């Protein structure tokens, strides 16, 4: 065995490596002449302390898949890649997108890299940096540290055991860690023997330069379990990430895919999402609980830590009955046919997908509107109501009770009750009966009784409390037709199921219209039923960004808002564990929004979960932003949206701004967002007229009339 030496000892590999390393050595000798090792050592000791790359690559959660994002100008296999004019800018974008580590190629001859690139990146980011080079000499390790690197690359194939061990010792003595790269089971064994903590599998064959994406899976069982496992090469799209993560990769190293896509930030985020789903599915499979890894098939009662049944025992038997009836109905062709028939012939499904051309031009990206406002009763609410009313009939219950905020769900429930000849009582916060007087009249015209709830904050949450009090005393004859994808199991799963046609239709319509999926989907979130319905169609399409927009009221820096996910904490309310707006004592804080339908201090538990795992993102939209988007849609498209849906439109405006900023106006104009236009705005005319000053303040006639 060769003794380790400062110069290292190369192993002839009979591959492209030999030639590359010969070049590396020549360049190295030149640098050594210019800057003696002693000076490099001094610079290394003066450098800022190294960062913990192992922790960064393990990520925050057992299911996390982390990305080593590479700054690489060209490669021997592909030649020159997309020109990188500013490595620092690119690295910053990677970091913002959620990369755990930045890798910088410093090899000059084949990869066109340099230590100057490393310096530029080091200055630009706060995360660990890998100096990626062909390490054959201790000088390079000192050099890496002197330039602020936290990680170096050690290629097992190029080093004998003693040199590999010596290099690893030196790396660690300088506070850094090494990515120990392997290609075969034999190399993995050698990496294990020297105690590598980060083991990479390079799926590129050194002889043929071909990538074999299945190599990682074949080698997986030999990889040391306690090391961080990194898949390298061939990480060109989300499918590869899914493959590697499914075989247990903790991280992937990728460069070309990120640079080529033109959207480095979005691609890193996509890779992390796909990888986390694949790792979660793998973990579930290994635990043998038989749960499908597909987010769209999440059955409840729990969504991660959220959901469940935090309910009085008195109601558990009724919830069991609803669950059992629902599960049977889903498998009953007669029920499905009846639901489809009503959806089609009564509710006007499928709803249209309208391209909003003039609106799109104003906001800089392409907007498709999913027109739930065209359903019978004017919103998505009818989907869920028809389904649950059919279930109530099956349970032999002839009385429906419901809560309502904006009145849309109350109107829909009153409609279904009239259609099916059932009794209907709608609970509505007293403040909302004032804001939405027209909808109160509509419910009464349809034969429902409307109870104005004077307790608490006199809004939606108090209406739910009162409906629950009714239900506990009337459960033998009454079905509580909960209007959103919240509450105790099975409501979140069941309400989603009745609404998932929104997303299924939107996905198919977008594919047939554009031949591709949208880049993003935007929906407003109060309890979150239209959002979960439209998200559902895209949950397992990792390239589609899902955005929920909550009611920011006067602004999330004020106390008057309903931004539950953005600012809330986990707790239990109305039967589910989810994000809540609450004080230190767990008392619910009253929410505020110009939109009665979003004025709710909790949110459906599945949204809480999608937020926690990063699959969907939630942001607040203020009253002002929502009303600006409301007016813009009225003026550019001749559509008056519900104020609830205007939050989703305002979200699209934000996405447009982001894309224009990041990609430039031309690329942004090709980006597509599907907006859930969940309801029409007729009910909101009084509120909007007041907001825009269309009625004189002192003679507030519309408001008078509504009292």
């Amino acid at each position: 065995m060769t003794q380790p030496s400062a110069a290292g000892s190369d192993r002839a590999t009979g591959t492209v490596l030999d030639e590359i390393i010969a070049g590396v050595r020549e360049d190295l000798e030149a640098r050594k002449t210019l800057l003696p090792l002693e000076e490099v050592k001094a610079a290394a000791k003066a450098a800022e302390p190294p960062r913990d790359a192992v922790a960064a690559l393990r990520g925050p959660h057992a299911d996390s898949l982390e990305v080593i994002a590479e700054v690489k100008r060209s490669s021997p296999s592909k030649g020159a890649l997309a020109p990188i004019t500013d490595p620092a800018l690119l690295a910053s974008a990677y970091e913002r997108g959620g990369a755990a580590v930045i890798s910088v190629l410093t090899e000059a001859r084949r990869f066109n890299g340099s230590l100057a690139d490393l310096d530029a990146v080091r200055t630009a980011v706060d995360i660990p940096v890998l100096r990626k080079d062909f390490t054959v000499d201790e000088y390079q390790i000192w050099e890496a540290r002197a330039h602020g690197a936290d990680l170096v690359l050690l290629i097992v194939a190029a080093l004998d055991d003693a040199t590999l061990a010596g290099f690893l010792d030196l790396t660690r003595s300088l506070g850094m860690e090494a990515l120990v790269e392997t290609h075969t089971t034999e190399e993995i064994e050698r990496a294990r023997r020297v105690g590598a903590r980060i083991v990479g599998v390079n799926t590129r064959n050194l002889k043929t330069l071909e990538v074999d994406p299945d190599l990682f899976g074949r080698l997986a069982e030999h990889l040391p379990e306690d090391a961080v496992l990194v898949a390298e090469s061939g990480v060109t799209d989300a499918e590869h990430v899914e493959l590697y993560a499914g075989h247990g990769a903790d991280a992937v190293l990728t460069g070309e895919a990120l640079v080529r896509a033109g959207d480095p930030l979005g691609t890193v985020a996509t890779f992390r999402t796909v990888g986390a789903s694949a790792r979660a599915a793998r973990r579930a499979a290994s635990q043998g609980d038989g749960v499908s890894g597909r987010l769209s098939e999440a059955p409840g009662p729990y969504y991660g830590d959220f959901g469940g049944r935090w309910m009085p025992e008195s109601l558990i038997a009724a919830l069991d009955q609803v669950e059992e009836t629902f599960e049977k109905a889903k498998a009953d062709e007669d029920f499905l046919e009846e639901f489809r028939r009503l959806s089609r012939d009564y509710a006007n499904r499928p709803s249209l997908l309208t391209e909003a051309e003039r609106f799109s031009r104003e906001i800089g990206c392409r907007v498709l509107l999913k027109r739930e406002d065209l359903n019978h009763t004017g919103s998505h609410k009818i989907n869920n109501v028809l389904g649950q009313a059919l279930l109530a009939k099956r349970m032999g219950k002839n009385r429906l009770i419901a809560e309502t905020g904006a009145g849309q769900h109350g109107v829909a429930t009153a409609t279904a009750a009239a259609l099916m000849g059932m009794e209907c009582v709608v609970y509505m916060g007293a403040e909302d009966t004032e804001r939405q007087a027209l909808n109160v009249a509509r419910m009464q015209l349809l034969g429902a009784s409307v109870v104005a709830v004077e307790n608490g904050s006199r809004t939606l949450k108090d209406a739910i409390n009162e409906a629950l009090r009714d239900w506990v005393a009337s459960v033998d004859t009454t079905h509580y037709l909960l209007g959103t994808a919240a509450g105790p199991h099975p409501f979140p799963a069941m309400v989603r199921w009745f609404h998932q046609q929104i997303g299924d239709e939107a996905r198919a319509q977008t594919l047939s219209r554009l031949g591709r999926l949208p880049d993003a989907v935007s929906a407003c979130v109060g309890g979150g039923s239209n959002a979960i319905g439209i998200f559902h169609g895209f949950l397992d399409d990792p390239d589609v960004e899902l955005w929920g927009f909550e009611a920011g009221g006067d602004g999330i820096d004020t106390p008057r808002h309903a931004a539950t996910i953005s600012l809330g904490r986990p707790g239990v309310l109305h039967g589910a564990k989810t994000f809540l707006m609450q004080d230190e004592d767990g008392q619910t804080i009253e929410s505020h929004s110009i939109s009665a339908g979003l004025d709710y201090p909790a949110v459906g538990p599945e949204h809480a979960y999608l937020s926690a795992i990063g699959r969907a993102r939630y942001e607040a939209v203020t009253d002002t932003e929502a009303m600006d988007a409301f007016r813009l849609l009225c003026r550019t498209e001749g559509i008056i949206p519900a104020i609830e849906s205007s939050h989703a439109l305002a979200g699209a405006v934000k996405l447009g701004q982001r894309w224009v900023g990041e990609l430039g106006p031309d690329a942004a104009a090709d980006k597509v967002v599907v907006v859930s236009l969940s309801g029409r705005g007729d009910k909101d005319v009084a509120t909007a007229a007041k907001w825009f000053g269309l009625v004189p303040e002192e003679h507030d006639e519309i408001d008078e009339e509504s009292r």
Partner: protein
Amino acid sequence: MTMAEPKDLAARLLPPEVLEPRQSRLAQRIEQCRAEGRPALVGYLPAGYPTLPESIEAAVALGNNGADIIEIGIPYSDPVMDGAVIQHATTTALANGFRVAQVFEVIEAISTRTNAVPVVMSYWNPIMQRGVDRFARELAAAGGAGIITPDLIPDEADEWFKASLAHGLDRIFLVAPSSTRERMDLTVKASSGFVYAVSIMGVTGARDAVSNAASSVVERARAAGARNICVGLGVSTRQHVEEIGAYADGVIVGTALVRALGEGGPAAVGALTAQLAGRK
């Protein structure tokens, strides 16, 4: 993969330690009443109503006029199991600035100034937000014997099982006329001290007649193995206490006491308690 033995709910959900018999002040007190040939009188009042000092005096009056066990409710913003009278009282307490930690002052006063055994009754979120273990530790330190949990079922109670075992507190879950046999079995096994039998499908509030569902719930809880069963919801008079006392081990009065406190202060609570206890 082999098929697992089908297990009932209790076997699937309950940690084995929960099933072990334990020393319980609540159970001892009920045994003592049984030995005296009478049902335990359980009284409910919310902490902080109408003010903290008055709620303490009212609870002490309750304990010194014949209540064996006292439930102190934590006022909560969304009390879905409560009728108008208790809603009004707890809303008033919150409006007067009630904070959750003040419940321990009331518990401590009962524990030091009366012979009654104090427990807390609370919706779950306030306890979850304080930290289940922390709340349990603080309650035990103040002299509390357990917690009645109207919206926590054993299916969601993992944390509470751990905390109650760690701090020696009783778990009083509710059973209802609608509880299935399997759930009755689960809830009875998960409970300690006593089982709270809901007499009626409905929310709290005084009623003229106690539902005849009550005796059937008690019978079914007994069949599931419950030793001590107290009946609540709708109980407001000495006559109800006697009727229910004929088949249950304890009788729970809430709304009538809260109304008395609102109308006549702590003295009225004392007077009504004495009446309910058959002392005058």
